[in-house]
């Protein structure tokens, strides 16, 4: 019993230790590739003209939106990307007046969507784009749960062939040597396409050159393990709807611990459970043997005692009967002698 408890505790301790220890074992990396590309967005240059949205809609042949793409009143309400829109520009009221911020897939270096997808529908391409393959997608939407930037969108109104929709960084255009649609169209050079390390250098130079104009932070350099799209801003990023509490751990790092525990459970559990089974079986056997032995012993003892008692009784009986015989003999002798004496007596009386 004690042994069993101990084994159980040992197993539980081992399992919990294995489950929480973050480790790289059992996980794979998606990037970054040496010549990974990206885009640098400068919020201080964006004027909210929505030209990028229009270009995106055209080059990706997306359905026409409800309101025309040159209608700037849509900026009054905050929007997000959806199945018909790969990129949106939002307007934020800040201390420095209105600031515009473009939003689309950030093409993470270690994409949460790719890490979360159980059919590998998402792929981090060598040029930096994170692409999606609808031909294997099951439609579980775990990518949408996993994405820290809430970017992937889903065709909820498609009954049988729904797809996940998101910015592709214009992957097909990149392969033709062209720029992403939005970057090409931007009239204010708020968007710069290039090699990622080059973009970081440009961003740092701008901050160094105009320290009063920029917040000293390149958003996307380290967030969630780093992204291919990066951002510069003149106001704190939280004020333009960007979360600064995401941390620097990439999605694969976050799930590495639980994944690494899988082979340990597979390896240890059968041994542990087999051991518990063997111990409990052995306990049952020992208990059973002991019971059988106890019964046997009891029977034996009872038998011996009975025999002893019998023996004693017999002895006693023999003694008793002997004594009785003696008594009887004595009595008989006495009785036998008595008449003679009587006779003698009577003879005496008679005579």
């Amino acid at each position, binding site marked *: 019993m004690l042994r069993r408890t101990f084994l159980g505790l040992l197993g539980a301790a081992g*399992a919990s230790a294995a*489950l929480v220890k973050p480790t790289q074992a059992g996980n794979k990396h998606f990037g970054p590739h040496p010549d990974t590309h990206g885009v640098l967005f400068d919020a201080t240059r964006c004027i909210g003209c929505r030209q990028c949205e229009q270009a995106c809609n055209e080059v990706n042949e997306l359905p026409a939106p409800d309101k025309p793409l040159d209608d700037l009143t849509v900026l009054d309400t905050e929007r997000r990307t959806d199945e018909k829109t790969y990129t949106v520009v939002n307007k934020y009221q800040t201390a420095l007046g209105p600031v515009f911020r473009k939003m689309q897939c950030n093409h993470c270096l270690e994409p949460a969507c790719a890490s979360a997808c159980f059919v590998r529908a998402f792929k981090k391409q060598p040029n930096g784009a994170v692409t999606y393959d609808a031909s*294997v997608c099951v439609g579980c939407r775990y990518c949408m749960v996993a994405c820290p930037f809430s970017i992937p969108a*889903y*065709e909820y109104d498609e009954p049988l062939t729904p797809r996940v929709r998101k910015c592709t960084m214009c992957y097909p255009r990149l392969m033709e040597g062209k720029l992403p649609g939005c970057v090409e169209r931007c009239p204010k050079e708020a968007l710069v396409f290039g090699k990622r390390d080059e973009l970081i250098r440009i961003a740092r130079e701008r901050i160094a050159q105009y320290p009063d104009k920029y917040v000293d932070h390149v958003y996307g350099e380290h967030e969630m393990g780093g992204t291919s799209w990066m951002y510069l801003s003149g106001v704190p990023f939280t004020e333009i709807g960007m979360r600064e509490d*995401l941390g620097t751990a990439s999605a694969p790092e976050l799930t590495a611990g639980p994944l690494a525990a*899988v082979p340990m459970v597979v390896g240890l*559990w059968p041994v542990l*459970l087999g051991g518990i*089974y063997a111990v409990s079986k052995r306990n049952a056997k020992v208990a059973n043997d002991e019971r059988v032995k106890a019964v046997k012993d009891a029977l034996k003892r009872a038998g011996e005692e009975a025999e002893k008692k019998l023996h004693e009784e017999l002895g006693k009986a023999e003694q008793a009967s002997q004594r009785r015989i003696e008594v009887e003999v004595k009595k008989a002798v006495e009785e036998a002698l008595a008449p003679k004496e009587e006779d003698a007596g009577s003879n005496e009386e008679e005579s």
Partner: protein
Amino acid sequence: MSVETTAVAKKSLFTPFNLIATVILIAGLVVTVMRFTGGLGAVTNLDQNNPWGIWIGFDLLCGVALAAGGYTTSAACYLFGLKKYHAGVRPAILTAFLGYALVVFALGYDVGRPWRLPYPIFVQQGTTSLLFEVGLCVMLYLTVLFIEFTPALFEWLGMRKIRNIVVKMTLALTILGVVLSTLHQSSLGALFTIAPSKLHPLWYSQYLPVFFFVSSICAGMSMVIFEGTLSHKPMHHLMDKEYLDNHDGLILGFGKAASLVLFGYFAIKLIGLAYDNNWHYLTTGFGAWYLVEMLGFVALPSFLYAVGVRDRNLTVIRWAAGLTVLGIVVNRFNISLVAFNYQLPAAQRYFPSWGEITISLFVVTLGVVVFRFISTRMPIFYEHPDYKGEH
């Protein structure tokens, strides 16, 4: 036995249960047609920010946790040598098997292209995904549960030879079942470890997989007690002496174990809170709700179980079991729905639609109907007369 069963079935054709079940099943079929002609958007309140609703939060997360009675009971009986729980194994295995089958059935509504559900295993494996692990384990475990269930089926069909072969594999199947359950019960919690920015810190933890695994043990044992109580009245005529004699012992034993495991669960949840130093959140609104979950649905049932076992009071134990089952639902809802996306403005938060609720009710009703169908025909609550004492 069979004459008696048919007589009972005929008598009870228009019972309130049957009428309500029929209404739910018809409504479910209507929503099914809507779902597969109009898409998820036509029947659910899911949107771009809230990709998972109650079909994942209830049908999958709660369904899997509440079907944990299968592995806990068979492990207690066959691995830990608690032979007196033997009579409880078959109902628990059947419940688990049906539970998992319905989880997969319900997933067919939720995923976009259900016929591709085998893709992650047979077409392209995303081994970096915890969902891959869940899928693989659930598929394998469903198979294991089916094999574990088949002796009852073969006894019913009178196939003695194959039944004996399956019975010989009991130990191996039980160990495999516990391994697979450990993995996917914990992985369901681990699914959320990828989204620390979306799940409220009081519920997010690196220990989520351990929390899910340990709470599934509580859920499994409580569900066996709860479900035994529910089926006691309608199935009483089918239960044999062994089942009825051991039933109270099983309730007491599981009640005692559940009290301890719940206490342990409370302790590790506290450790999780301390490890991430989240104490300051306790004074917020979410903190109050967290305390309700921890005190009302973990500490209270643990205490009630202990009192019930001490006083040998089965009624208190049954109430504790009901509370724990409800607590599991509360916990899984909190993680997948309430504390998920906690930073979104209230207007963008998710609330289930009638269509979603209908399908969830539909799935549960289907489970109860199939359970009744099988347990009134096959040797679930009684030993088959031809195989008495052969286990």
